[in-house]
């Protein structure tokens, strides 16, 4: 575990001038937990100190249970807590060893970064430009196999300037893109090999965007295998994960279906008295309304229209989304589903015949001409308006699932705006990470007329459907 985030956080926490009271130790431990993403409030810290006063401090199990009960408030947090506890509450010798290893590692990384910087500077030197790469990118370069480093340097040397391009800028862009690719690739390989990536946590770069990714990946590795899938980008799910993914989607959809399928719901809002039934009931009391009768609140089944992008960039996501819709079963009610890329096709009937999912998907794919093509949302919406306009009413929630990479976004946005005005709500589930939205002008244009949500994991997919299909009574 010496390479992991917890070790780094523990080692980096310092010793607060050598104070070794229970309160100081708890405070330091809480600071570490917070660094690792566990939300611990001041009140919980006080609770933890109080809890320690009630247990046998010489019993490690008691101390662990007491702190865990007060500081870790979910299964995921408990997993982080366990690692942190094992490393923090240890002998002074072991702690000193951790600090020493941390210091050595930092020195080694510093040397590697300096060497990488020199190497890169030499490669781009003739463009007379400073390296505008982050520390993390430098570290990535230092970790590359020699062959890959040579190839990258070779590419940089062969870049030729012309009258149009700013060559220095171009070289810088190539370098950054390449290093970002390699960083992602190396992390992915680690994941594939089942290695613990949590060590990346402490290697934060200070660059908000990179840190967000690093924290996200690292956090995923603290989670239960099911949660890891639940919170992982659908694009990154491997073939080996598919059985687990299928079962998980089935469970999520069934849970949502159960909650959507209830016919009546008690409401916290004031209930309406059913005058007719109340009068009839109270005739026996001479008309004195002793027993009130209330109107049962019939719950409307949610009605939604799903328009799912199945173009080349979306094929993988689409499979999971459609599987989720398939899993809704009776929760579908009168809802409609469509797939689109260059044009739009109706798929509702495929999901209604209670066939097994594999067969259903085979039929959807074979019966459609849209899979894997380019995206033209505008044409697709025109088809929708022409043929299926009546599917959208004031009670309908429209879900569009797409990464927003479409031609003619302005025209599509106009049609979406019109659709949004005719519906209960128009929700765009964007399968690309939010941080990438700004890079896609179409997303900016479409985002101005729809309620756009990041939806690249199963957890978000379920949350979006649950939130937007909340019943109306």
């Amino acid at each position, binding site marked *: 575990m010496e390479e992991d985030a917890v070790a780094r956080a523990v080692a980096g926490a310092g010793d607060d001038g050598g104070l070794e009271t229970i309160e100081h130790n708890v405070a330091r431990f809480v600071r570490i937990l917070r660094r690792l993403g566990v939300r611990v409030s001041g009140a919980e810290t006080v609770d933890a100190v109080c809890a320690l006063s009630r247990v046998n401090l010489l019993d490690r199990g008691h101390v662990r249970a007491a702190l865990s009960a*007060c500081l870790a408030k979910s299964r995921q947090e408990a997993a982080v807590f366990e690692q942190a506890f094992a490393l923090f509450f240890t002998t002074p010798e072991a702690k000193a060893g951790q600090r020493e290893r941390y210091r050595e590692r930092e020195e080694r990384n510093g040397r590697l970064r300096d060497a990488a910087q020199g190497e890169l500077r030499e490669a781009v030197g003739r463009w007379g430009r400073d390296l505008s790469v982050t520390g993390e990118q430098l570290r990535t370069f230092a970790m590359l196999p020699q062959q890959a480093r040579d190839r990258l340097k070779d590419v940089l040397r062969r870049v030729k300037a012309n009258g149009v391009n700013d060559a220095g800028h171009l070289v810088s862009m190539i370098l950054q893109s390449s290093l970002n690719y390699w960083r992602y690739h190396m992390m992915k390989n680690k994941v594939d090999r089942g290695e613990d990536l949590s060590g990346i946590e402490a290697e934060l770069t200070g660059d908000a965007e990179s840190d967000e990714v690093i924290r996200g990946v690292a956090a995923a590795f603290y989670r239960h295998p099911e949660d890891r899938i639940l919170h992982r980008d659908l694009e990154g799910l491997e073939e080996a994960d598919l059985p687990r993914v299928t079962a998980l989607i089935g469970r999520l959809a069934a849970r949502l279906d159960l909650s959507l399928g209830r016919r009546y719901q008690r409401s*916290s809002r004031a209930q309406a008295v059913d005058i007719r039934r109340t009068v009839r009931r109270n005739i026996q009391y001479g008309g004195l309304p002793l027993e009130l009768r209330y109107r049962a609140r019939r719950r409307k089944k949610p009605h939604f229209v799903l328009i799912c992008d199945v173009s080349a960039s979306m094929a993988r996501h689409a499979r999971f989304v459609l599987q989720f819709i398939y899993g809704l079963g009776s929760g579908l009610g009168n809802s409609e589903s469509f797939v689109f890329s260059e044009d739009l096709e109706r798929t509702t009937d495929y999901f209604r015949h209670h066939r097994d999912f594999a067969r259903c998907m085979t039929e959807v794919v074979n019966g459609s001409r849209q899979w894997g093509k380019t995206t033209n949302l505008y044409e697709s919406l025109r088809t929708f308006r022409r043929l299926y306009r009546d599917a959208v009413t004031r009670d309908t929630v429209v879900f569009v699932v797409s990464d927003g990479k479409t031609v003619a976004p302005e025209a599509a946005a106009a049609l979406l705006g019109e659709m949004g005005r005719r519906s209960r709500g128009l929700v765009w589930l964007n399968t690309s990470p939010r941080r990438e939205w700004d890079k896609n002008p179409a997303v900016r244009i479409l985002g101005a007329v729809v309620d756009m949500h990041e939806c690249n994991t199963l957890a978000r997919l379920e949350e979006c459907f649950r939130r937007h299909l909340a019943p109306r009574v």
Partner: protein
Amino acid sequence: MDLTIAALQEAMEREGYVCEEELAVTVYLALTLQKPLLVEGAPGVGKTEIAKVLGRVLGAEVIRLQCYEGLDENKALYEWNYQRQLLKIQIMKDAGGERDIEKDLFDEEYLLARPLLKAIRSRERVVLLIDEVDKVDEPFEAFLFELLSEFQVSIPELGTVSARHVPVVVLTSNGDRELSDGLKRRCIYLYIDYPDIDKEVRILRMKVPEAGERLSRQIAAAVHHIRTRLELRKQPSIAESLDWARALVALHADALTADSFTRTANLLLKNRADHRQVLERPTLDGILGATGTEGEAGVCACGHHRPGRGDSW
């Protein structure tokens, strides 16, 4: 009972709740710090049972608030007894006492105490079980804050009612939705996972002693294999493995065989697709392999049955 961690653990085990020391420490802290205990875990792992067992251990009444979507204060806290109030109005009208009527109508006499208020007003310490708190709406969850931190509630017509004895509060959640930080912050937290094989054997031996050591171990191993190796829509809970054990005992099975498994699988697997998946031959063989069953039949738990021809299990 002199409350210590060891004594609590022992008392809980005596009341039929198999628990390890860590769980006992957490419950002990909730009791001594007088904080609500929030128990999370999959359905059927024994969350609700903790409250019931605590009731027996402490000799306290268990007051249960079963949560559901749309639960409101009227159902959880109190309601005015409208019918009695109406009758009172009629009686006072006939007796000509309209002037005093208003102050009398909102007396405690006309208050219908619901579980939360019952727990607060109880003359003895009680165990308040707020079951499946993840089912309630968020506004109701926020309403619980005051109760759980101050152990008091406000009734506009009567004022603030404070707890005579701070109740032992146990909240359970199946994790249907994430609870708010505010609620979690006020609680001592306990996550109960599915038990390992040894713990499940202990539970089976305690709850279904007639199953015997061998069958209990096979059941525990089979259920553990199913939970950890198979991707099912619904994993079998402890409650279901207990039912399964009872069914096997009722069928005079002393060991897990393909036949006895097939005949009793309905008690363990509550989903058609899961049922089909588990009973497929390679999967079933894998489960039986994990239990160390060789498919042989011995003497059943009652000692009088031995399968022969035409007496299959």
